[in-house]
Every structure is written in C-alpha cells, then in structure tokens.
C-alpha cells in the first residue's frame, strides 16, 4: 500500500522538470511557477482517486496546473492584484507591451513576451511548442476543441513574431 503511493510520488518527481517548465511559462516567473507546481502536486495527491489508472499522469497534472493557474488568476483579479486581463482574442502583443513586474525581470526576450499573451494562448503554445504534446492531447488537457487550440496557437505565434530571431 505504502509502496503504491511511493510509486506515484516517484512518478511525480520524474514529472517535475516538465511541470516546473510549464508553470514557469504560465506564471512568468520561476518562483510563482514553483508555487503553482507545489499546489498542483498537493492537489493531485489529495485527489488521486480522480486520476484514471492507465491514462497519462502528466496530462492529468498539466490540467490541474492549468486550472489552478486560472483559479489563482481569477482570485487575484478579484482582489485587484492583477490590474486587468487580456481577452482571448486580443491583438498581438506590442513590442513594448510586456508587463514589467519584478518577477518578470527574471525572464527575457521571447519568454518574457510569452507573459504578454492571453493565458489561453500561452497555455496552448506551451503545451504544444514547449512540452511537445500533440494537438489532441493538448486540446484534451485544455478541454477545448482541436480547432480552438489550433487557432490559439496560431494567434500566439503571430503575437510573438516580433521576438523571433531573424531568419
């Protein structure tokens, strides 16, 4: 019994690099990302009965992280910590439009520009372009149709184009 739980904990440790990378990209800082990962791990263990054995643990945890990120963001917005949100269909980020809080100073260039994307575009791009998930798997995690995912990724790419290195 204890061994089964330990096995799951070990699998989560193996997933940490990817979860931390995803969460850092989502939140815009390593520290916030690690807080999000800790929250995600604790929730995943507490709700492990909701994970269907035989399905991908990584996908399930990415989904928890994404949902927690949006919950935290909504809650911060309500308490005025986040001044405003960018709608999903917002136009491309302007080259000087990156929000410059202290946490973001840790990041640079295109990664910093990620933070200027609407969260829906950011999470879609991160799952596919950084974590290498298929459109099908990413759409499942984000609980959206593949067409919506395709569109969000394309818009994210257009928005980030100014940061792309010259070909």
């Amino acid at each position: 019994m204890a061994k089964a739980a330990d096995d799951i904990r070990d699998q989560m440790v193996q997933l940490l690099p990817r979860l931390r990378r995803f969460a850092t990209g989502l939140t815009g800082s390593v520290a916030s990302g690690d807080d999000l990962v800790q929250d995600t791990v604790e929730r995943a263990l507490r709700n492990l009965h909701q994970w269907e054995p035989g399905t991908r643990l990584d996908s399930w945890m990415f989904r928890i992280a994404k949902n927690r990120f949006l919950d935290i963001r909504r809650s911060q917005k309500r308490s005025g910590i986040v001044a405003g949100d960018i709608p999903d269909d917002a136009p491309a980020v302007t080259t000087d439009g990156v929000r410059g809080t202290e946490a973001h100073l840790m990041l640079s260039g295109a990664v910093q520009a990620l933070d200027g994307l609407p969260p829906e575009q950011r999470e879609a791009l991160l799952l596919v372009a950084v974590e290498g998930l298929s459109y099908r798997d990413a759409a499942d995690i984000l609980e959206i149709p593949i067409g919506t995912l395709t569109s969000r990724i394309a818009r994210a790419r257009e928005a980030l184009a100014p940061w792309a290195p010259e070909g």
Partner: protein
Amino acid sequence: MEPTRETLSAFIDGELPPGEMEQIALLLAKRPDLDAWVRQQEALRAGIKKSLSDLVAGPPPEKLMRSIESAPVSWRWRLRHAWQQPLLRTWMPAGATLALGLLIGIGLSPPGDIASRGGQVMAQGALASALNSKLASERGAGSGPRIGITFRDRDGHYCRTFDTGAESGFACHEERGWGIAMLAARPNAEAQGPYRMVGSEMPDVVRSAIAARIQGEPFDMKAEKSARDRDWR
C-alpha cells in the same frame, strides 16, 4: 494557394495530414516569405523551450520535494488500491464488521460519514441518517447516500447496502448504531457521478460479502418499511 497562419502553424507542429504537409513543404520552397516565417517560428519555439528549460534546470527546491514526499494521498485512492490486495479481498468477504484497525492498517483515514467508535467503524452524519430512515424506493429523491437492499444477517441484525457515490458497502444495525460491515471504493466513481449506482452495479467484493452474510432473501418494500418503522429493532 495562400495558406493561412493556422495552416502554417499546424505545419510547424507536424499536425497537418500527410498530404497537406507535403503540399506546404513544396509551397515553402517557392515562397521565401512564408519559408522565412516558418523558420523564424521554429527558431522562436526552440528559443522559448531552451530558455524555460534553463530557468528550471537543476534540482527542484527542497520545499517542493518535501511537499511531494509528505503531502497526504487521497484516502479513496488508497482504499481502492487496498482492495486490490489479495489479503483484503480474501479477508473481507468473511463478513466481520470492518474494524478501524483495518483502515489504519492499510493507511487510511476514514471519510466524513464514517467514524470510529469503540474500535469499530460506524456510520455517522448523512450516511447514518440515510441508513436509519431512507427507503430503497427513495433512491432518486434528493441528494445524499442511496440505499440499496435490506436484509437480515445470520446473527439477526438488519443490514442495508449503501452508495455514497465514491464508495459502496453495507452496514448492519447494532445497539450503538450502524456498523460498517463492508466498504469498497467504486471504480471510476467520479466518471459516473455521485449516487448513480443501481444494484446491478454493486462491486463484486460487496456482493460476495453480502452472500456470505445474508440470511434468507433481501427484504421487499413492505418488509423494509416495516423494519424501518420499528427503528430496526
């Protein structure tokens, strides 16, 4: 043909159907502007991935590792796993009242509707209330645990099956209340939603335990109501 940005983006991710992937590749060879866009985006993707990977390179923070090592694991998950162990599967159909020691022995903390009293696991709260007063015919009414069949065990106690949505089992009436005789986590309880189990969906392990303990036939509606009206005495 002028491909949309979505098509080019899906091309970068290798998500177009094979024939279309080839068409776009041929087109890029003739269109330096589109080819440049694709190459820039590929470089951007590689850059973002490398930057983020570098940021989280190295060992995870100790606080995070401690959290993984010590955060509590879902008791429902552990219960489900415990029931897959041969020892419990063999032991439980013997039918004795579930002892708190057993729950503790397999590393479980009892759920809210179930508590330890005098070393035994007893129903409490909404579960006790349903066992006391709910009839099987009320399965669709309101929320809360559902009651399945009622029967007498070989010691003459009234026993009733229940379903909380996440677990099912049966409890037998004793002087101190309803002792949990069997508790089994329901596989995929969340997928099915709470309170949807009908008798035929009862886990085998619960069915076996009832078979080992039942005396006579399950009660019909009239006998069930009559026993309830006598407060299960």
